[in-house]
């Protein structure tokens, strides 16, 4: 509508390009969803916080993932279900997913802006008898963990999901799965953080960190491309590069990263609402608000030297879309218009690295696999810890920054 004033949605460039303050209580490193959320929750509680970002905000995994919330257990989570300890971890993760999901549902209200959070439900499909057995096992575990799913087969599946191929013999459905818009979440966190008093500096990549051997206001001196800053506490929110940042203080985080390939099509009339995953093949598929289809699911985008870093490759596009069209044959004449790649973070044990290091006091991290889903939760919990360490419940030992990176 002409002349209507629009609410501000992004931090203006003039407030991210100024000089770096000489000191801060908390220095957050990384301008993705984990960093901007941490800065927001800290600033809202009145903590002095400065965030530095190497490039622009939200340009890496936080802004390049497909925005899905996965609640159904994935195959990697099922693979270690043999022992009691693994089962406990699985249940803990499931409960955590539900908690993260709760935050997401209220996040638009909290940040006072549209995040395009939609509960679409989600299918996880099986093509073989063995895969279907896995779906049944998965469903039983999910029931125990409190995640609502159902196994649907035969004519009921045809009736409820006529878009699925004939060779899909069964699927679990989870009504709570959905997505948000990854392009708007971190920028809005950043805007609200700045409005609450946080300082954000882009183009301020961290070069080195001095640990000054004392506690207190000058515990750390962080050297950046935009100058040096003293900090009482540091939070490593550098995602795929969080291992490099932690190494600057002598820690070895159990982090690795991979480039992932995503395909997006032209818009088409609505074909289906739920997200679609595959229990045995790499596929996530959904139709977006813009009616385009986003096809991903973990196909590689191998790293090459900068500036290209993670070019998308034909092999992944051809393989990924082959899985998609074999699950949803109606996609055959839809045109792929673009591919993109994003970097994804893993820990070998799939547990996050959240909390304060015991070895280097004052050094914190907030890094998680499935970081888009979990960062709002972990960032809030970490901020609560940093605001009132004694009041907040401790993080599980398996989140420790100091745990061994060797299996």
């Amino acid at each position, binding site marked *: 509508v002409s002349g209507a004033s629009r609410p501000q949605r992004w931090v203006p*460039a003039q407030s991210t390009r100024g000089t770096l303050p000489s000191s801060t209580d908390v220095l957050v490193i990384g301008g993705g969803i984990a960093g901007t959320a941490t800065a927001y929750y800290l600033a809202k509680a009145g903590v002095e916080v400065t965030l530095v970002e190497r490039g622009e905000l939200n340009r890496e995994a936080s802004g390049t993932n497909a925005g899905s919330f996965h609640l159904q257990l*994935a195959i990697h989570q099922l693979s270690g279900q043999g022992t009691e300890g693994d089962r406990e971890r699985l249940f803990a993760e499931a409960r955590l997913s539900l908690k993260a999901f709760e935050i997401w549902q209220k996040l638009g209200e909290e940040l006072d802006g549209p995040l395009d959070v939609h509960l679409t439900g989600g299918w996880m499909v099986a093509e073989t008898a063995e895969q279907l057995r896995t779906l049944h096992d998965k469903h039983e575990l999910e029931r125990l963990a409190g995640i609502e799913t159902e196994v649907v087969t035969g004519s009921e599946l045809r009736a409820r999901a006529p878009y699925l191929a004939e060779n899909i013999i069964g699927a679990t459905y989870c009504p709570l799965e959905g997505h948000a818009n990854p392009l708007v979440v971190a920028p809005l966190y950043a805007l609200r953080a700045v409005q609450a008093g946080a300082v954000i500096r882009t183009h301020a990549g961290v070069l080195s960190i001095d640990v000054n051997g004392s506690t207190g206001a000058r515990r750390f001196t962080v050297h950046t491309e935009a100058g040096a800053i003293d900090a009482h506490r540091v939070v490593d929110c550098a995602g795929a590069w969080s291992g490099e940042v932690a190494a600057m203080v002598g820690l070895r985080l159990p982090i690795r990263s991979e480039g992932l390939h995503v395909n997006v099509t032209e818009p088409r009339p609505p074909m289906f609402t739920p997200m679609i995953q595959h229990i045995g093949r790499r596929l996530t598929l959904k139709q977006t608000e813009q009616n385009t289809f986003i096809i991903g699911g973990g196909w590689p985008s191998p790293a090459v030297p900068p500036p290209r870093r993670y070019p998308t490759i*034909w092999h992944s596009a051809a393989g990924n*879309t*082959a899985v998609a069209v074999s699950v949803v044959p109606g996609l055959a004449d839809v045109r792929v218009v673009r591919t993109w790649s994003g970097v994804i973070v893993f820990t070998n044990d799939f547990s996050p690295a959240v909390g304060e290091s015991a070895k280097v006091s004052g050094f914190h991290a907030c890094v998680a696999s499935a970081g888009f889903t979990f960062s709002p939760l972990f960032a809030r919990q970490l901020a609560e810890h940093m605001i009132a360490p004694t009041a907040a419940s401790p993080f599980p030992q398996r989140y420790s920054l100091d745990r061994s990176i060797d299996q």
Partner: protein
Amino acid sequence: MGGGHDWDLLVVGGGPAGISAARAASEAGLNVVLIDERPSLGGQIYKQPGPGFTVPDPAAMDRQFRYGRSLIESLHGTRVEVRLRTSVVAVEDQQVVLVTEGSPAQTVTATRMVLAPGAHDRPVPFPGWTLPGVVTAGGLQTLAKTQRVLPGERMLFAGSGPVALAFPAQLAHYGAHIVAALEAGPAPNTADLFRIARAARGNAALLRDAARYRSLLLRHRVPVRYGRIVVRIEGDGRVERAVHAAVDSDWQVIPGTEQSVEVDVVCVGYGFIPSVELLRLVGCDFGYDEDLGGYVVHRDEWQRTTVGGVYAAGDGAGVEGSFVAMDEGRIAGLAAALDAGAISVSDASVAAAPARRRLARRRALSSATSRLYRVGPGIFELSTEDTVVCRCEGVRQRDLDAAIESTDDINVAKAYTRAGMGPCQGKNCQRQVAALIARRHGHTIADIPLATPRMPVRPVPIGALADHSIVGPTLFLAGEHERGQQ
């Protein structure tokens, strides 16, 4: 993937540059394939009538048609393999992915590539530019050449550049009623004519064409008005009138000079811009030169780009017209043969010499006319906050203005607004977005890097893209890394 051929040289683009390159390389002994998206060769300029149209009497057609046909026929008797209705959608080193209409994608191997992708109409956003009835010169020309159709009753032509007057002249020749032709550049003065006369040697055909177009306009009583530009188009759901105004030498609108004219078609032709998608995808270095259409690939005197084995020729490497394209294409084809060891440096130099002489003369004429045809920076300032800049995603300038407050990075502006995410992948809006960023942040447009290039270069149906023989990587498993996988 699979099942590919091996070629010494793959030429992309079947226009004057591509045909000349393919022919020169083939005659020098290379094994050449020539790829074009259209159903026939000729490129945009020598576009041949579409399928179902026959030409019983070629002599009755215009000169351009005849010239194009003879160019295409020059491939007869060579060993060049021609693949039509085929797009290059991805390039990874020497692997080239081709999609032929109605067939699955095919990967072929080519040791060298001449990229001659040509140019497309310069998109110029201004109020009303998306109304039905506004057509580009290239689009209208395609309609006239391939379908023999003209839209509308009363047409206004607005544009600039060396071919700006050729379009209305040709269209008048085809029977269009053109109420006026606006040329944004200045009328030629005595000094211009003097400069042009001095550069006339070797350019007789071009100047004769220019004179012929002028006389066609006169004969069809089309008034030509210099130094005027369309500032907006009005109408209820379609073009009803156009408002034009005088501009200064930078194409900045002079207030108080607006005039309105009742028309049902406005044909817009502010020249062409190189189609750079493939050149960017393979990683060539670029410069910026508004006289050559903006983003222009770096190349040496043999048309080599900064990427080994990749050559660029024709309007896709800087818009200079079909004569330059032919000579550049010839040089690129010879260079590929030279670099492949098929001919010696001296043979290549001798064979390229006539083309180089012609190029020098064309470029002398271009510099003589650059005052007349230089695109002024005011071209980027016609859009208002209400104007749709990205047509694919319906993004208006005001949405972009808000995003650009927070960034000078075109990738970020794209992520925030979706400008450039549609089927055209920013071909039509990126330059305007770059100009908006440059204006807001005090840069020049040349300083704004374009968005990250990604394949596919053309939209590809999933049915053609999907390869069911590919075995997917295993799902991520705990400890996968330790088992020695990449």
